[in-house]
């Protein structure tokens, strides 16, 4: 029984509840749903943010995320997993991206959502630019995101190409 997986890269907003319901709909074995939503903040360290602009690498973004979703489905007994990542200009308060994972039990749903987020942060070809009142700056990658992603590397498995 294979997991029902969905990956979408889009400019438009999404509805997390609708996406999660698409996975559980008609499934009598769905017992646990975990969702993550990333939201555009209105400030960073107290400095107001006017908007974020997300640039991505079309084609590679889908392929990269799909491969991590397939990885997650191979590692945990998932009923389904959906990842949607927006691009373009996003205003404070708007959703940036979402992950939804569904399983029979909670441990798999939590682990898979956490795993997908860690990989999306460090491996999905997206770049955030922040508009502040004094100009636009590219967001810098965080060392803690690399450390978080390394938690999932299996000994003997080829480490992430960096």
């Amino acid at each position, binding site marked *: 029984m294979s997991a029902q997986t969905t990956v979408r890269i889009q400019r438009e907003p999404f509805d997390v509840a609708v996406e999660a319901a698409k996975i559980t709909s008609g499934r009598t074995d769905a017992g646990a749903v975990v969702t993550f939503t*990333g939201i555009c903040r209105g400030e960073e360290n107290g400095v107001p943010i006017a908007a974020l602009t*997300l*640039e*991505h*690498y079309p*084609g*590679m973004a889908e*392929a*990269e995320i799909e491969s991590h979703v397939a990885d997650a489905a191979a590692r945990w007994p998932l009923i389904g997993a959906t990842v949607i*990542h927006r691009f373009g200009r996003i205003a404070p308060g708007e959703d*940036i*991206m979402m992950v939804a994972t569904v399983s029979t039990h909670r441990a798999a749903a939590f682990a898979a959502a956490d795993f997908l*987020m860690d990989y*999306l*942060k*460090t*491996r*999905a*070809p*997206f*770049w*955030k*630019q922040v508009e502040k009142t004094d100009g636009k700056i*590219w*967001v*810098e*990658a965080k060392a803690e*995101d690399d450390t978080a992603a390394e938690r999932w590397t299996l000994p003997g498995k080829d480490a*992430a*190409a*960096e």
Partner: protein
Amino acid sequence: MSETINKTVKLRYFAWVRERIGKPEEDVELPAGVATIADLVAWLTARGEEYAYAFENPKVIRAAIDRAHVKPQASIGNATEIAFFPPMTGG
């Protein structure tokens, strides 16, 4: 494929790498001797100051061959599209 024939490859740049180089993509003829991503970065760096600026700290530059992440020592082989970009900040 013979290594002695120059290959045309599409290069794509993203985020501040794109901004520094001043274009999102270009087709280049790879000279013989440019066998790896690291070779390509060195060759591009010598092409002009915009490239030198983009690649001034090669350790932070990430690369993809045909839309898959690769390391600097990766062989270019029969690549049709090579991309350079900063560390990713999605999610």
